[in-house]
């Protein structure tokens, strides 16, 4: 651009300058909307978030001016924060890993031809189509001590006395969190399975024939042929699951509200709890969350060399 302007000053006729500037701006007509959208939906909220996290807010949202890093100092002094972060790590790793493993199996099954496959595939959508909040509430009541459905079954199987302390699954942080992870896996499986099924359908039949001709065992075929070819689908599913699960809120909120104390809260839930007490501190935590999710996603993409196939 500089050279254009200089040349313009050196005596070229003005219309030519205007024309070159105009033609330089021409692509804007195509990329402009996208830029505007990103600026509005992504960049502006980030700016607002940074601002909020360095502002002193009254409990009811009155702006009392900037307070530098006070909110962050206060946040890092929260004695529950380390536990919350640790729990968030466990939450993401366990939920995503188990979701992926189970979905691989489910997808393999649903990729087979069997009578009623269409119906079964539709049924698989149910947990996905249902509101997550609704699912969480239903599980909460199924786990109710005394007469919750799951407890009655476990009781009849002789595994758990439905009136005992053990049956109060959501009352203790350990078992409560475990059930919440189970529900998170339950609602993540449909999407993941469909992504994997889509991936399986792109694997050409010839490669399986070739593997058969070479005398590869079923297990060997799966690990050396199917899985590598599924890689793009698995990567997409993992990245989206990581972000979804990290930001998941309704399951924990509906089942235990993050309690007892804050012992089943992840960062997203803790952020919401803090919002009722200190908006600035809550905004600081949402900045931390934001940084974490970016680091996690980039680290994952880096480690998995997600685009190596495209480069090769």
């Amino acid at each position: 651009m500089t050279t254009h302007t200089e040349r313009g000053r050196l005596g070229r006729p003005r219309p030519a300058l205007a024309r070159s500037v105009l033609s330089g701006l021409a692509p804007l007509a195509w990329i402009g909307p996208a830029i505007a959208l990103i600026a509005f939906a992504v960049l502006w909220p980030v700016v607002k978030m940074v601002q909020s996290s360095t502002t002193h807010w009254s409990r009811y949202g009155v702006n009392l001016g900037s307070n530098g890093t006070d909110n962050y100092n206060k946040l890092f002094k929260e004695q529950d924060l380390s536990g919350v972060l640790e729990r968030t790590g466990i939450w993401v790793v366990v939920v995503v890993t188990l979701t992926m493993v189970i979905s691989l199996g489910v997808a393999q099954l649903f990729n087979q031809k069997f009578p009623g496959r269409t119906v079964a595939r539709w049924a698989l959508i149910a947990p996905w189509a249902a509101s997550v909040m609704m699912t969480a509430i239903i599980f909460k009541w199924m786990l109710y001590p005394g007469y919750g459905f799951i407890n009655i079954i476990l009781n009849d199987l002789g595994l758990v006395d439905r009136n005992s302390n053990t049956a109060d699954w959501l009352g203790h942080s350990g078992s409560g969190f475990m059930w919440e992870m189970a529900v998170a896996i339950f609602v993540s499986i449909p999407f993941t399975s469909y992504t994997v099924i889509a991936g399986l359908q792109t694997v050409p039949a010839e490669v399986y024939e070739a593997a058969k001709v070479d005398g590869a065992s079923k297990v060997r075929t799966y690990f050396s042929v199917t899985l590598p070819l599924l890689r793009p689908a698995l990567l997409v599913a993992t990245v989206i699951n990581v972000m979804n699960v990290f930001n998941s809120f309704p399951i924990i909120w509906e089942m235990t509200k993050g309690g007892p104390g804050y012992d089943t809260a992840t960062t997203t839930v803790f952020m919401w709890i803090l919002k009722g007490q200190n908006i600035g501190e809550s905004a600081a935590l949402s900045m931390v969350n934001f940084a974490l999710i970016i680091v996690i996603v980039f680290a994952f993409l880096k480690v998995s060399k997600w685009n190596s196939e495209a480069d090769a």
Partner: protein
Amino acid sequence: MKRLATLAATGLAASLVLSACSSSKSSGGSSSSSGSSKPVTITLLAPNYGSGTADDSKNYWGDIITAFEAKYPNVKVQLQEATWDNLATKLTTALQNNDAPDLFEGGGYADVAAQGLLYKASDIVSPQTLSNLIPHVAQLGQTKGQDGQQAQYGIPFTTSTRAFFYNTQLFQQAGITTAPQTWADVAADAAKIKTLGKTGFGLPLGSEEAQAETYLWTLGNGGGYKDASGKWDINSPQNVQTFQWLTDNLVKPGLTEPDPGTKDRTDLWKDFAAGNIGMINGSPALLPILKEGTIGSNFKSSPIPGKTGTLSTPLGVADFIEAFNSHPDHKTAIGEFLDFALQKQYQEKFDNLYDLLPATQDAAADLSASNPALKPFIDALPTAAWYPSSDPNWDPASQKVKDIVGKAVTSDPKGVLDQIQAVATASN
């Protein structure tokens, strides 16, 4: 690299959806001028005091609103109902989003008053309404406004006192002849009831109303939220001792319901009404639940046991109405509605419906005569101990109590109470 950038942008957008949503603001109310000559719509956010569809508070307010709108055709009243356990959150969220209701009934008022968000009572309701409030209850509604002046901001709407309830049938089966007077009695009786396969004592330390249960127990050991000089004293040695006693003598031996830190009042009251719990602290609001339950008339109430004897001061709870000043053009209509709703007939209707106590003098006098079951509770009001609700830090502190006090009976009580004390004494 292109794909990386796209993916990153998608991630960015996805993780920002939440924050984008929470920063949206509503555009405020209508812009009609003051006076009730032009139509206005005022909003009322109130909790549901009922426990079923028949006694849902929607019906109570609905009747008042219908009658009011007939008399004042230019004012519409819109009721938003909340459950007790999310009432405070709902108000906080509404305020943070610049979407305050005109009237809020049910909670504390001091910290919003301190921030200048409320009308003074004398600015909106008539002098007759004000002078009709029970004086010492009305006094609880006074706090310092943004201007630093003490004034009445909270308008009491209903009151209640707490009592100890026990299941007489279970007591009889367990061979207990008298109501417990001390904590040691409670533990001993709970142990006997446990042998019947029932829960000895219902201890609701979950988020619904943990601040009441906490207060009842700490009062029993000469503790409480503040010391005699009015300073926050939540982590006092007496209070720590109280929770240590609860842990060692009720919770650990399994004499309460499992995990009391996560259990809410209403659920336990229903369980008590079903005959599954031997003893529980209740308010008059427990009475309608008992009527629906299977317990029949097999229950009695008595003074609340303390460490060495029953409490001399019962816990009194007042629920206040506060009027938000975000829509100056609604001011007249708000006042008209409050004057209308605080009439004797509606106060009495409410109290007969929920067995709660009135906030106005004429209703108190009437009810003492017409509803003998309520008379002892009404008579006890002047001696009651109340929450420190005129302190602006009470709202955040009581929220913190609801959040974490349940952990005081499973982990280190001192640490938990220290955390609450820190919130109560923080400067805002």
